[in-house]
């Protein structure tokens, strides 16, 4: 990396990169909120599982019809098999075993492997789509606030239109037209999800814009891009971080919902896909639906707790 791009990075990462002390200060404040630390812990756990898990688990797509709907260890399942010869039902009890620690689904696929693969996809979609959305939102918000006038008007009316547009319908439409792949899902969520961020950032940047230090740097010869990148964006970066962490759960849920209705990426196993498969066998194999459900629940909760904690830590007015 050239020294120029390093210095740009320094400016945008702002105080967090430059000042270790400041980072320590926020970390201390964050730690006072135990729930947010628990959330962070869970997120880190999920990230490690998502990154390294697939190396240790079986292939999540490998069907094994020898062991369909096998319960997790410690649970049993009653199965009645119709015997043609005796014209009778034979009951048999299937017990969970350690070969499949979280059981299997109706095709005998290992639940653990599928959940691990789902964690990877959820985090991938969640982080990447949020990243795109927040990047766009910050850029549009700051541009709108700083330039003002007709640029502001045009950008904000565009935002309004994007906001009122039923995004899920758009997603379904695009998936229908172009077929489903993770990349398309990420792009669509990212390219439509920036509106809230743009508005929030704009409002913050609007109040910053009238501050003296903006006029002062203008008076000393700074260009518009310099003011936006060196002064406005670093001043809203804490807002951006909080917003990102709070909007990740929505994105994860959106991806799960898409997969649940069968519009997810067919080549990958996400939590939504498993949920979808599990809903048909709720009576015989409850764990197939419940396990991804719990994972979604915990993940969304973890991000929300973490985001809340971050918001409090960054808010100078909050007494924690």
């Amino acid at each position, binding site marked *: 990396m050239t020294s120029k791009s390093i210095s740009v990075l320094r400016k945008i990462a*702002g*105080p967090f990169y*430059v*000042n270790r002390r400041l980072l320590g200060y926020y970390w201390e404040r964050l730690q006072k909120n135990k729930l947010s630390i628990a959330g962070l812990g869970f997120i880190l756990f999920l990230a490690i599982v998502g990154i390294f898990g697939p190396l240790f688990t079986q292939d999540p797509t490998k069907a094994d019809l020898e062991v369909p709907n096998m319960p997790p260890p410690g649970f049993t399942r009653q199965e009645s098999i119709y015997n043609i010869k005796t014209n009778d039902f034979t009951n048999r009890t299937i017990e969970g075993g350690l070969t499949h620690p979280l059981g299997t689904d109706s095709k005998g696929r290992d639940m653990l492997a599928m959940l691990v693969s789902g964690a990877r996809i959820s985090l991938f979609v969640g982080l990447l789509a949020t990243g795109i959305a927040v990047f766009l939102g910050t850029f549009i918000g700051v541009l709108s606030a700083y330039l003002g*006038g007709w640029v502001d008007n045009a950008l904000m009316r565009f935002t309004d239109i994007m906001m009122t547009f039923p995004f899920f319908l758009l997603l379904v439409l695009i998936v229908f037209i172009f077929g489903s792949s993770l990349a398309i899902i990420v792009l669509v969520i990212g390219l439509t999800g920036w509106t809230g961020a743009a508005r929030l950032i704009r409002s913050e940047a609007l109040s910053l814009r009238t*501050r*003296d*230090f903006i*006029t*002062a*740097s*203008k*008076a*000393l*010869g*700074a*260009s518009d891009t*310099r003011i936006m990148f*060196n*002064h406005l964006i*670093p*001043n809203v970066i804490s807002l951006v971080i909080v917003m990102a962490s709070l909007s990740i759960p929505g994105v994860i849920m959106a991806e799960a919902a898409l997969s649940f209705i069968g519009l997810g990426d067919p080549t990958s196993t996400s939590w939504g896909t498993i949920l979808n498969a599990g809903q048909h066998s709720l009576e015989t194999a409850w764990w197939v639906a419940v396990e991804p459900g719990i994972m979604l629940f915990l993940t969304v909760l973890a991000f929300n707790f973490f985001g809340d904690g971050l918001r409090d830590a960054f808010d100078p007015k909050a007494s924690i």
Partner: protein
Amino acid sequence: MNSEALLEVKNLKTWFFTRRGIVKAVNGVDFALRRGECLCLVGESGCGKSVTALSLLRLFDSPPGKIVEGEIIYQGIDLARCPIGHLRQIRGKDIAMVFQNAQSALNPIFTIGDQIIEQINTHLDLNREQALEKARMLLDKMRIPEVDRALTQYPHQMSGGMKQRAMIAMSLSCDPCILIADEPTTAVDVTIRAQIMNILQELKRNRDMSIIFITHDLSLVREIGDRAAVIYGGRIVEIAPVERILNKPAHPYTRGLISCLPDVSSESKRLPSIEGNTPNPMDMPSGCPFHPRCNRVMDVCRSVLPELMNILDVHAVACHLHPNLGK
């Protein structure tokens, strides 16, 4: 002091086109700034002195603000009309500005060092070490103790006076030849005010820097000014060397201002004041804007706007009282 004009402002008019009407904040200001002199712009709140200063570098919000008429000539270029890219080269490098409130004029999330270095890099092509060295030197000249610590401090960790000095250091980073100081001492206490005034005086003396000093405080004018321009209703009503303006004011408004200076030796219990308020810039009185408050108002004042005319070589005044006016 030589008489070469470094910056010449001719009939400058900056108006703000707001929804409720046109605010004629600056309405025909003329002056020339000479090399090495300190010109004070004096006036009450709302008289247009700050907008005049902001207009010189086109720093007011636009829209709604606009320079509707006039020229600001610097090195043969009209700053009122030149392309913004060119103006940016001049801002900070040739003409720098110091703001009233250093607390809000410094970016709260960067260290003083980072901000000064950024400023240096805007106009000069130095690497980080050279820039740091220059920043150190600048702060040292501002008599900031423990320069290395100050460089790593954030604005909120510094005292008001330190911040103001850091701000001045920042504006001096590219050796400008004109410094516009917009009430630089209003937000600081008396001892710091003295320090800042000393620094400005040194700049004038040692670097031959021209200073446009904006204030409402006549005692500061006496301390630092070479010439003073009294602004009322967006126009200069009187301009003369400081000595003369303080001792022989010609305009009734200037006289009023000077009589308002508290005098510890006087017997009177009440401080004198000028009756009335500054005129509403959206609805200026006809004729001389000062006539509703003037204690020597004449008929002509109500209808005819007096022009700024020389009563001496160095002393100009815009008032019908002076017999050689209106001829």
